């Protein structure tokens, strides 16, 4: 029973914005469900196969912004075959048909065709924002359609997508009277760019705040662009190559002095290190720096640059910074909250790689650190215990030792105690990735202490089913569990199948799970899709042989049953 008219309740709901909270509102009672769904503007769907496009549009006819995620996370590492699924076209079709006034579309790990982009560009008069992360399946022709038809486009953000470059003139497709651009990121494009068109576009976009260009934009073009856009807040350079005594460099230096608003810097896809001093004045204002695509900046020059970045909150860097470089970060960047250290030499012997020393130094110098992604040569329990003590505020802790089963090099012990210390100290930990030599013990600790854990990634760890069971039993808030190459089998999978309904998804590959067990899960839980992916031994794989080990299993909760777009090597049980 409502004591207030609907409009009042709706007004109150306007202040409730997070997806979690909105979802909670809708569960209170029927009339709240109704008011909530009609007033919902932003919809987040973590698994595009959990609900149908039609049902989504029916429930939320007023939606303006849709976020969709497609392939499972391990697809990023080539563990999911390309044709697995995650197509956005049916969604765009459904939205177009229902005449939803879509303004924003954010996609992650989805297959996006040029056809989808064209349909998108023609169907929504007020479309403002397109964000594509780790997607594939489209070319610059699709981008041309967006540029040409979305007259009020504010944001085109392409992050780490595989885009086929047809060397077209997509940039020139932006209409002359399109002046609304606020954010443009095409750093991941591999081909040439019409520089004149880019310059003109920037010149007529007074609200432009974010500009990340690709490799094809050289330094002199960048300088001209910055002259026209000194108000930029976020800059991604392209190719930063020149002679330090050239005119272009000196012009850039003085232009950059006028760009007082830049808070985020990235790019340097090609770089000549001793021209970096031009950016020193910018560095002192930076809160975010991404040099993870710039292997040309290392050693001495990198450290000099970092010493200027005293306000840095987010740093993405390559491991050629070394432990010593990380010490400099620790002593300079006292406000650091997020650090990602990527491998510069994934398969090599890593002369320049980082070790536990760098991480310990960071933990000492940067107490505000809460998000970490750290690729390293080695890790010790002692270091992890120290880090846990120094930084108890971790929300995301992802450690990747390049040799995935490496023990503590000092004691030759597994890293159970180290990770145990992390989960025990970091009470807000929501995401955890483990590597190194690990036994069931670490999972016992995780089950016991990681009460807020929502996502766990495990590779080459554990001894037996007990490991997985500790986690399934203990982590009440677990939403995503992904496991590869661990000795977890049927007992672990089957002990509590009801648990999977409380989670978004479970991925298990190269484990000990049999086909029979997967069938059992599918039978007991009709609300789950249990997918078996078997690309290799198709002739050998027999759907009747329950004893067979399953290569890859992906199960997820869904309201729509088995999907109809699965390729032939994916079986939904």
């Amino acid at each position, binding site marked *: 029973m409502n004591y207030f008219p609907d409009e009042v309740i709706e007004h109150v709901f306007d202040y409730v914005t997070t997806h979690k909270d909105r979802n909670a509102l809708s569960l209170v009672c029927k009339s709240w469900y109704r008011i909530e769904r009609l007033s919902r503007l932003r919809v987040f769907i973590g698994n595009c196969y959990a609900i149908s496009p039609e049902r989504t549009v029916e429930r939320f006819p007023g939606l303006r912004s849709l976020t969709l995620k497609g392939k499972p996370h391990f697809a990023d590492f080539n563990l999911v075959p390309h044709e697995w699924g995650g197509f956005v076209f049916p969604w765009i079709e459904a939205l177009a048909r229902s005449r939803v006034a879509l303004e924003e579309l954010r996609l992650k790990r989805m297959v996006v065709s040029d056809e989808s982009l064209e349909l998108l560009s023609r169907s929504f008069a007020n479309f403002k924002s397109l964000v594509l992360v780790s997607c594939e399946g489209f070319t610059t022709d699709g981008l041309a359609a967006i540029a040409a038809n979305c007259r009020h486009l504010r944001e085109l953000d392409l992050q780490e997508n595989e885009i086929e470059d047809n060397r077209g003139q997509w940039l020139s497709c932006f209409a002359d009277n399109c002046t609304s651009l606020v954010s443009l990121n095409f750093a991941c494009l591999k081909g040439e760019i019409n520089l004149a068109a880019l310059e003109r576009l920037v010149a007529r976009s007074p609200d432009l705040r974010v500009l990340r260009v690709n490799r094809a934009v050289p330094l002199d073009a960048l300088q001209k662009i910055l002259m026209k856009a000194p108000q930029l807040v976020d800059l991604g350079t392209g190719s930063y190559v020149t002679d330090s005594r050239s005119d272009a460099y000196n012009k850039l230096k003085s232009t950059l002095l006028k760009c007082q608003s830049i808070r985020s810097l990235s790019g340097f896809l090609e770089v000549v290190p001793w021209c970096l001093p031009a950016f020193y004045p910018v560095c002192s204002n930076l809160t975010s720096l991404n040099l993870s695509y710039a292997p040309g900046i290392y050693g001495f020059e990198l450290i000099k640059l970092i010493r200027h970045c005293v306000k840095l909150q987010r740093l993405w860097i390559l491991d050629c910074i070394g432990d010593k470089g990380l010490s400099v970060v620790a002593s300079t960047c006292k406000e650091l909250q997020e650090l990602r250290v990527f491998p510069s030499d*994934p398969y090599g012997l890593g002369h320049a790689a980082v070790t536990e020393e760098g991480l310990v130094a960071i933990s000492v110098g940067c107490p505000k650190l809460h998000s970490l992604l750290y690729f390293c040569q080695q890790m010790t329990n002692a270091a992890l215990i120290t880090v846990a003590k120094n930084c108890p505020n971790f929300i995301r802790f992802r450690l990747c030792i390049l040799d*995935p089963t490496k023990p503590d090099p000092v004691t030759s012990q597994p890293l159970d105690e180290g990770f145990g210390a992390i989960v025990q100290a970091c009470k807000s930990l929501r995401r955890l990735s483990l590597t190194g030599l690990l036994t069931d013990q670490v999972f016992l600790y995780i089950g016991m202490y990681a009460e807020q854990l929502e996502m766990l990634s495990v590779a080459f760890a554990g001894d037996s089913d007990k490991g997985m069971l500790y986690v399934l039993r203990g982590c009440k808030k677990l939403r995503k569990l992904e496991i590869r190459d661990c000795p977890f089998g049927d007992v672990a999978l089957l002990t509590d199948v009801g648990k999977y309904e409380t989670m978004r998804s479970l991925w298990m590959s190269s484990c000990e799970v049999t086909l029979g067990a997967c069938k059992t899960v599918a039978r007991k839980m009709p609300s789950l899709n249990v997918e078996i992916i078997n690309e290799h031994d198709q002739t050998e794989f027999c759907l009747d042989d329950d004893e067979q080990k399953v290569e890859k299993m992906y199960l997820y909760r869904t309201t729509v049953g088995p999907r109809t777009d699965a390729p032939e090597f994916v079986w939904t049980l």
Partner: protein
Amino acid sequence: MESGMAYEKDDLMINLKATELRLGLPGTEEETNEDHHQDQSSLSSSALKNRKRHSPEITREEKSDHDGEETAPPAKAQIVGWPPIRSYRKNSLQQMKKSEAAEISGMFVKVSMDGAPYLRKIDLRVYKNYPELLKALENMFKFTVGEYSEREGYKGSDYVPTYEDKDGDWMLVGDVPWDMFMSSCKRLRIMRESEARGLGWGV
């Protein structure tokens, strides 16, 4: 931590031991948790061997010695999807290495020494810093380089190491940071001290 663990462990062990799935082929020795810590190094390689049921994509070479040495195997095996970085990033790195290698392949520079009948060539990439480079030059040409100081250059030797930079100027080796030197050095010349003095250098 330990006391809490023991209770849990025993409780579960009673229930699960009978149905516990073990690693390894049938007939192999069973490893209990107690033995685990004693046998660390062999666990890492043998457990891996057993964990990987599908060998086609794994070309890991098995180590013949099981004494847990931390030296990296000579041909590092490539596991599918490892290390876990996005293919976009992996491809970018490879592309960058290719273009870098193309640039850096010009790191072979000529070295001339006053009075020597012919020139030599060295690969600057091989050396990590000035002392290494100078030592190599000393060995190659059988001379000693003097002591370097910012104020006076090289003292106490008959020869002075110089290099031609990208602008065509002849510079004294050792003034600029190593990285900068590496990228700007076009050729080296080991100059006789007498000549250097003639140019106004040295003591």
